[in-house]
């Protein structure tokens, strides 16, 4: 087992859920409540020392799921030697809320906004949680599995320029 994963397990026995490895890529799965603390530990602990938050994103595992429908995925990297770690937390469909990590990494700001915008995950304590890609009037979260790729007809719900309007 990956060293940092072991220390996470040691440090956060309550929050730690599982450890996976696929294609030599370590993944720690933690409870959503523990994510912030685990990440703080991974950032500040000198032996872990993940200084770069590579990415924050969310995955929708299926429209029918109610438990563990969403997962929020954090990719970490230690810039000095390129050590990488993935951290995952599953969220339920009815209340996809998780703690924001902007206090730890400024980089998370937009990424969390994007996850909020496209996937509908709410990040608690985010300084500026509003839509980033889509217009503020947009109602859906298009990356969710129950949002069709085409055929929704969203285009017609926007104000369009009509040359015949006149002055």
């Amino acid at each position: 087992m990956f060293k940092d994963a072991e220390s996470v397990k040691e440090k956060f026995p309550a929050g730690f859920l599982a450890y996976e490895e696929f294609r030599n890529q370590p993944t720690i799965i933690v409870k959503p409540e523990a994510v912030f603390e685990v990440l703080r530990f991974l950032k500040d602990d000198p032996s872990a020392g993940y200084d770069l938050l590579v990415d924050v994103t969310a995955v929708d595992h299926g429209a029918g799921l109610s438990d563990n429908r969403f997962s929020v995925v954090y990719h970490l990297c230690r810039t000095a030697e390129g050590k990488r770690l993935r951290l995952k937390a599953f969220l339920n469909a009815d209340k996809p809320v998780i703690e924001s990590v902007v206090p730890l990494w400024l980089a998370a700001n937009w990424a969390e906004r994007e996850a909020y915008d496209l996937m509908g995950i709410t990040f608690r304590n985010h300084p500026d949680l509003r839509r980033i890609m889509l217009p503020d009037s947009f109602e859906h979260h298009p990356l969710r599995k129950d949002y069709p790729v085409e055929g929704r007809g969203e285009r017609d719900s926007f104000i369009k320029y009509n040359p015949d309007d006149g002055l």
Partner: protein
Amino acid sequence: MGAEQLFPTLVLVGLVVATATALIVISSLFGPARRKSREKFDTYECGVQLLDSARRRFSVKFYLTALIFLLFDIEAVFLIPWAVIYRKLGVLGLFETFFFIAVLGIGLLYIYRRGALEWD
């Protein structure tokens, strides 16, 4: 600078004013009248809705620049009558003018030290 010099200048002024007027008239005559839409007559705001008016207060720093300009404009103006006769005036005129320049130089130094030339 008598009338014989003024006359050609006035002819030139008349010509250019006439040209300018003609050009403005020409464009309104020959320009095609196309369909008028609201967007066309809007102020350019990088393609988004107008945030607010451009008529607003600006930084006082711009005013300071004009102010300093005034100081030196006067200086240049007063230097010119001296510049045309400084050879005749000799050393005394030299020092009189240097005093003048020095006082204004001190003014510039003051402006500089007060940070009126700085941005921020």
